[in-house]
């Protein structure tokens, strides 16, 4: 349930981030575009006035995207810094210069305009807007200083970024709190389901015991019949089903299943049981089992884990296999290594249910063995990983 909660928070945060970024991106885009459009109107005016502001309004008032384009230029002349350079259409000869940009010499203005001559309109040196117009045998380049006009959009951008970060932070804490409450019903359902299975398993035992004993009694009193034999078979099947239900509940960490046992002994026992199988397959198997390694956990679960690891090596190993058990930094480390002819790749997929790699062709199995090993390791609170490189397949388990 913790994983579900993490995924939920991550997904929600990502969605909020994408939506916010898109929205603020559009708003900031509009802000900057409007500034650029205003600047373009001014440069157009200057170009039309051959480097100076024309007093008279145009015959038709052009409409900009956000309102009337023309406005009285008196305030503009007072506030705007600009320069205009007119070039002869052919060649680089300067026809006129109108320089109203503080701190810039005429020569610098001409050099700057020359560098922009081949363009059309745009931003130059970040805060300057330029326009190039060609007519009547000459090319006019106008550059206006928009640093003051850009203050506002940049301020809006900064506020947007800070605001977005603040919203994301608040959203994170809200989601932390809300997700717990939202997922509580799911957690409750999951817990109830597990408890139901455990209780069902327990409650079925008594009726099954009575049926079993009753059948035995009937057979003893009246002799075995086809009916009683059939009942025995059904009882056996139900007992088998109960054991499967029990296995479902037993994989959960449960203090009642836990006991401290010698993992070294268990490893040695399982290895000995399988020694003949390795010999028969002509595989070399080397155990490196450190003595005295103990573990608190489910003894039977660990036996099944070891069995599955060795079974996997028996089936798929080429040449040499080994099993190492040791204690390292207060953890128990179990390494199952064997030769393989598989190509190097990300080997984590071997723990997925029903996954069979190409070397499984010709071998029996449904691809559940290693996923079962992973379930047991997780139930034990451990970590498992797999590596496939340089002709070696390695499973590493930390408990």
């Amino acid at each position, binding site marked *: 349930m913790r994983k579900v909660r993490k995924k939920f928070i991550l997904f929600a945060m990502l969605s909020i981030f994408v939506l916010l970024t898109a929205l603020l991106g559009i708003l900031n885009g509009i802000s900057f575009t409007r500034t650029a459009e205003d600047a373009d109107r001014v440069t157009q005016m200057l170009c039309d006035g051959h480097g100076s502001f024309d007093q008279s309004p145009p015959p038709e008032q052009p409409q900009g995207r956000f309102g009337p384009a023309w406005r009285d230029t008196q305030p503009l002349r007072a506030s705007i810094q600009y320069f205009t350079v007119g070039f002869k259409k052919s060649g680089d000869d300067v026809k006129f210069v109108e320089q109203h940009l503080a701190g810039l010499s005429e020569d610098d203005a001409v050099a700057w305009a020359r560098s922009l001559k081949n363009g059309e309109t745009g931003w130059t040196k970040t805060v300057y807007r330029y326009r190039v117009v060609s007519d009547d045998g000459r090319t006019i380049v106008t550059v206006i200083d928009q640093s003051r006009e850009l203050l506002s959009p940049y301020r809006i951008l900064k506020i947007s970024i800070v605001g977005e970060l603040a919203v994301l932070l608040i959203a994170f804490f809200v989601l932390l709190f809300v997700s717990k409450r939202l997922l509580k019903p799911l957690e409750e359902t999951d817990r109830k389901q597990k408890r139901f299975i455990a209780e069902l398993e327990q409650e079925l035992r008594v009726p099954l*015991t009575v049926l*079993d004993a009753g059948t035995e009694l009937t057979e003893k009193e009246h002799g075995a019949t086809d009916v009683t034999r059939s009942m025995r078979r059904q009882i056996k099947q139900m007992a088998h089903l109960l054991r499967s239900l029990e296995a479902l509940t037993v994989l959960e960490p449960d203090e009642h299943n836990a006991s401290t046992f010698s993992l070294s002994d268990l490893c*040695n026992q399982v290895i000995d*049981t399988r020694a003949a199988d390795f010999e028969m397959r002509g595989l070399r198997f080397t155990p490196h089992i450190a003595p005295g390694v103990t573990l608190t956990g489910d003894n039977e679960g660990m036996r099944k884990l070891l069995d599955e690891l060795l079974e996997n090596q028996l089936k798929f190993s080429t040449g040499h296999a080994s099993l190492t058990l040791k204690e390292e930094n207060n953890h128990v480390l179990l390494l199952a290594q064997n030769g393989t002819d598989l190509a190097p790749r990300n080997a984590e997929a071997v723990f997925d249910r029903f996954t069979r790699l190409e070397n499984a062709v010709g071998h029996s199995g449904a691809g559940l063995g290693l996923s079962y090993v992973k379930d047991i390791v997780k139930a034990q609170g451990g970590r498992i990983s797999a590596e496939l490189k340089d002709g070696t397949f390695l499973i590493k388990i930390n408990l």
Partner: protein
Amino acid sequence: MQVLLADPHRDILLTYQKLFALRGDAADCAFDGTQALTCLTQGDYQLAIVSSRLPRIRAEKIIEAARARGVPCIELIDTHLRSAHLLSGVSACAFLSLPVSPDILFGYVDAILQKAACGERFSVAGVTVDVRGFCLEGSGIPLTSKEIDLLRALKDGPLKDVRHLSTYINALNNKLAMHGQSARISYVLKKGYCVVNQNA
């Protein structure tokens, strides 16, 4: 033989009472802990079968009372509690989980009665087992019938396949440790499970 059956489920009690009757054994039924204690004080039983789900008085108290009277007990428990019960020192001679078939139950009954009837004591790796008392001599630490069989088998030599006995091996090692013994049941490569002296 007189048997005490203590279980809250009437159907189980009555069916097993009839099965015991077919064997020629008499069985008294108790549906809760109070009835079971009353039966124990008033009757003379050779065996008690007690359910862990007995209401009113906990099954462990009934088992202790029975053992104090020299009556060996079989406890019917939930499967996942078997390890815990083996380690907890509850002095039942066997822990069985339902559903248990009558054949298996009576197998345990016969084994326990046979042990209770003999006066055998044997030693293995410096530890003496009181078979009739179902305990380690000297400390009184209780042993189950399976644990006694396991120790007896280990006395004769190493054991290879102990797949269904690993829970008992762990429990025994814990009990040996509690008894202050240096002997442990360990697996020796290519030999099998042996009683090994850790100080050697």
